[in-house]
């Protein structure tokens, strides 16, 4: 009974997840642009192509996936090896583009002769990571209180996103100002260089022709 329940849980947990195919040494990266202090939960499940049955095996032991997560400053936040099914979590400390990369680290390379690995992936960000039944049970909330709690979490996420927007707009403004400055200084410098080289050329050639007694 418990086995059936856990099987159903497993199946239903990933029944609705998107999947894609990945090659043996291929690295697939996904970008999540998130504000700071945002939680991200990723779940994946892998299936290997079985040439004999001509279908994907339900799960393969010995098949691992390496998950690497980098923050906007390209510093590694998480770099771990997981099994054929895995769940990874991280909370962002800087706002920006975080990169989540997956690549397989198969121990039995021979199995990969078919070359296809099916990866089911589900990445949830921010308030979607909240487990409302668990929160309701822990804090003993009524249905109405739980709904209000969900609304509060959503509004919190909106506020964080707007703060992040302000930060991005500031960066954009600084980049534009910097380009403006650079173009201005370059125009002045270019004019100066032109004038200086022009004057130098004239003087040099004049002294050269005078030395040659042509002038």
């Amino acid at each position, binding site marked *: 009974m418990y086995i059936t329940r856990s099987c159903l*849980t497993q199946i239903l947990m990933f029944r*609705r997840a998107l999947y*894609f195919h990945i090659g043996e040494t291929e690295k697939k990266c996904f970008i999540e642009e998130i504000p700071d202090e945002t939680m991200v939960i990723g779940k994946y499940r892998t299936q290997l192509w079985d040439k004999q049955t001509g279908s994907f095996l339900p799960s393969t032991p010995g098949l691992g996936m390496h998950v690497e997560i980098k923050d906007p400053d390209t510093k590694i936040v998480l770099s771990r090896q997981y099994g054929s099914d895995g769940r990874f979590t991280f909370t962002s400390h800087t706002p920006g583009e975080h990169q989540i990369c997956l690549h397989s680290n198969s121990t039995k390379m021979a199995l990969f002769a078919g070359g296809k690995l099916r990866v089911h992936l589900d990445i949830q960000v921010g308030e979607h990571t909240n487990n409302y039944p668990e929160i309701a049970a822990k804090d003993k909330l009524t249905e*109405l209180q739980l*709904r209000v709690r969900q609304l509060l979490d959503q509004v919190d996420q909106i506020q964080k996103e707007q703060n992040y*927007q302000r930060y991005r707009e500031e960066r954009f403004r600084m980049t534009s100002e910097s380009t403006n400055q*650079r173009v201005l200084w370059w125009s002045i410098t270019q004019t100066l260089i032109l004038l200086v080289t022009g004057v130098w050329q004239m003087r040099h050639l004049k002294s050269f022709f005078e030395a040659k007694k042509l002038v």
Partner: protein
Amino acid sequence: FSSYHTTTRLLLVPVLWAQLLCGSVWGSELTFELPDNAKQCFYEDIIVGTKCTLEFQVVTGGHYDVDCRLEDPDGTVLYKEMKKQYDSFTFTAAKNGTYKFCFSNEFSTFTHKTVYFDFQVGDDPPLFPNENRVTALTQMESACVSIHEALKSVIDYQTHFRLREAQGRSRAEDLNTRVAFWSIGEAFILLVVSISQVVLLRSFFSDKKTTTTRVGS
């Protein structure tokens, strides 16, 4: 009958909890990089009668366009657009099975693109395991539901705004680095050209000088 009922209830509760553990929205939202001349496909198993929405937007790269194609389990093309920047397509699944959607950058020779897509399948599952769904929602609860829907659309607009703004931002940063490299490059070229002009002119006149001295002596 009562034992069957209890078993189903015992099975149903963890099953619903498992569904809810996945998050309150049945949707996948991903941003990935599509290299030049590449095609990336995603698959999803959908039940007949489910209303689904596929939305995509090209975030960075080239002319911000990508080919998109959505096929049903029998291979019938439900949606096909070439070189589109962003679009949204809603359909109701007519068959059970695996639906496939692909993004292609095969027309581009050297620009790789970043594509964002959001694939929503069905409606949100309810917040609570439904044991008392027979009773209608109270006024407060329905107010909460409508606020929730409104906030979801606010978050959706924010996402699309962020993606649009990311396009402008990456162009501005590109421009900034290009201006820097170009300025240094052009200064260097100017100096090289002006010095070589003088050297070349000098070389013309030094040949003439040797010929004149030979003639003179």
